């Protein structure tokens, strides 16, 4: 187990290297550069060239990559061109919010999705199941942006249960923090819930056709024990993989949620950075998010064995 973990972590190094190169190329191949955004519509071409030089953008790209990468391996992600603040500092300041948001969203969606997936599977092809399918279809197709605004209109403006703006980190004041996080994590989790519920339903149906489920019934178990013990544990393994993949999507979806709810997360920062071609910021943040995603995948793989003992490391 420990050896497996170590192996996986060591294997992350070449992956990260590749990600670093790809991120660099991607970011540098989109047209426009940070200098042009910084000077806005206001500068003379000479001034633009000057800014370019001061940012080192006049260097050939391989040189820029080597310079950047040389710093990255020593743990220095550089400074954001936009804010002048070290990228790593910004990540440390902003990522916890995104992490809390996505994790709460994930917990919420699993808490909502797994039971509804199980119920839908139990009542398959009945009115209840069709209703569920409809709701989950809505869940995947409603734009997160719209959903967030609607949630704000109803729960914050009409009912006044939650604030519509502002933020307190949950680790500073858990209760106030949770109030600010509730709507965002629910709206963010809703999309994932729809996906996870559908996955749960279909893998439950898959599993329930198998002989061991009939066997469990033939033992004299109640239908609920059959569903929740025998079927669900097996059906949860593929669902877990989906959750892992979806977590990656949540990191992306967080951008919209963070914008609508004004949360100071990393997603919003990255998008701003992309728009302003803030190379060091984009590269550093994406590299970091890739790393997080790799760890999430590792966690999923480790957890998977708990649900499917047939897996070998």
């Amino acid at each position, binding site marked *: 187990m420990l050896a497996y973990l170590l192996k996986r972590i060591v294997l992350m190094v070449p992956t990260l290297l590749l990600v670093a190169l790809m991120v660099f190329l991607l970011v540098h191949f989109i047209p426009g550069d940070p200098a042009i955004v910084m000077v806005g519509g206001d500068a003379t071409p000479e001034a633009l060239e000057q800014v370019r030089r001061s940012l080192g953008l006049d260097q050939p790209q391989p040189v820029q990559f080597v310079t950047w990468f040389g710093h990255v391996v020593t743990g220095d992600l550089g400074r954001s061109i936009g804010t002048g603040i070290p990228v790593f500092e910004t990540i440390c300041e902003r990522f916890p919010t995104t992490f809390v948001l996505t994790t709460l969203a994930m917990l919420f969606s699993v808490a909502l999705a797994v039971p509804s997936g199980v119920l839908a599977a139990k009542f398959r092809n009945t009115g209840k199941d069709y209703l569920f399918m409809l709701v989950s279809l809505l869940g995947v197709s409603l734009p997160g942006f719209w959903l967030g605004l609607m949630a704000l209109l109803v729960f914050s403006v009409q009912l006044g249960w939650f604030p519509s703006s502002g933020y307190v980190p949950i680790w500073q004041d858990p209760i106030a923090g949770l109030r600010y996080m509730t709507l965002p994590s629910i709206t963010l989790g809703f999309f994932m819930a729809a996906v996870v519920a559908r996955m749960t339903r279909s893998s439950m149906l898959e599993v329930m056709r198998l*002989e061991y489920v009939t*066997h469990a019934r033939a033992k004299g178990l109640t239908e609920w024990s059959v569903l929740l013990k025998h079927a669900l544990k097996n059906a949860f393994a593929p669902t877990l993989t989906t959750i892992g993949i979806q977590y990656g999507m949540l990191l992306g979806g967080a951008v919209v949620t963070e914008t609508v709810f004004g949360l100071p997360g990393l997603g919003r920062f990255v998008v701003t950075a992309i728009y302003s071609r803030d190379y060091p910021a984009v590269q550093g943040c994406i590299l970091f998010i890739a790393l997080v995603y790799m760890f999430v995948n590792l966690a999923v793989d480790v957890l998977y064995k708990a649900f*499917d003992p047939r897996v070998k490391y």
Partner: protein
Amino acid sequence: MYPVLKIDNLQTHFHTRTGVAKAIDVVSFEIGKGEIVCVVGESGCGKSMTALSVLRLVPHPGRIVGGEIWLDGENLMAFSESEMRAVRGDRVSMIFQEPMVSLNPAFTIGNQLIEAVRIHRRVSRTEARERAIAMLRRVELPAPEARMDAYPHELSGGMRQRVMIAEALLLDPALLLADEPTTALDVTVQAQVLEVMVRAARESGTAIMMITHNLAVVSEIADRVVVMYAGRVVEQGTAEEIFTRPAHPYTRGLLRAIPSLPLGDDDGPRQPLYEMGGLVPSLTDLPPGCAFCPRCPEAFAPCDRERPPGFALGSTHAAACWLHRQEAER
């Protein structure tokens, strides 16, 4: 004294989009106490559904639409769902064909055996565990204590089926439904597993409804044989009657396909079953006459128009075939 199981005009239909599939068109037979009854027939003729009907576990969209099932004189069709649960696994248990998929891969052997005990008996986990280990020993599973903590995938197919047998017989049921329990196993272990099952069942006085299409097995263990075709019982009798005096052309076809078996009174050339030509008819669209008629080498006037009832050929022997009308009427 009541028979352990009495199936009386059972009808189980599947309501599918393409129509009603009469998986069990109509089936009646009995199993006496401690008796081993083998149910034989080609694939798809309703053997498994008969067993599942007894447990009232016919899968969706199937439903028992008629008939009665009597267990020790009690009509199971009148039981509530919770009364049925008390029957399952305790008075009637079942072994499935595929030991690879009939044990839950996500739980240890021990977990599944202890669960089986504790559903029906108010005993502690330790007590249930001991009982399970003792049972594993009875089915000759090597190192039973260690196996308790193993997952199904860590066991061979034969060992897994022993575990299934152990579980099925844990609570000394009156009836064991064994649905092709050795078909999926290696030929070399089939006999051992079968032997273990029969012995353990005899020890606990459990009757067995054994579904198989291995007639060699039937000849070895069966007290009585029920031959099914297209959702009906076409012939039943003692093992001796079936093997020595098969009355239905279908039964004869089956026997002819087994080279190592005595052929009874027909001395025609040995030929495999499929050479009877044709396939099992569609259960959604059964012909009006005898279902076997289109494939029957001996079909004559009434066969394609009227369905033959069961004609008694003796106190224990009956066949549903117009060939035996006179015989029965005599």
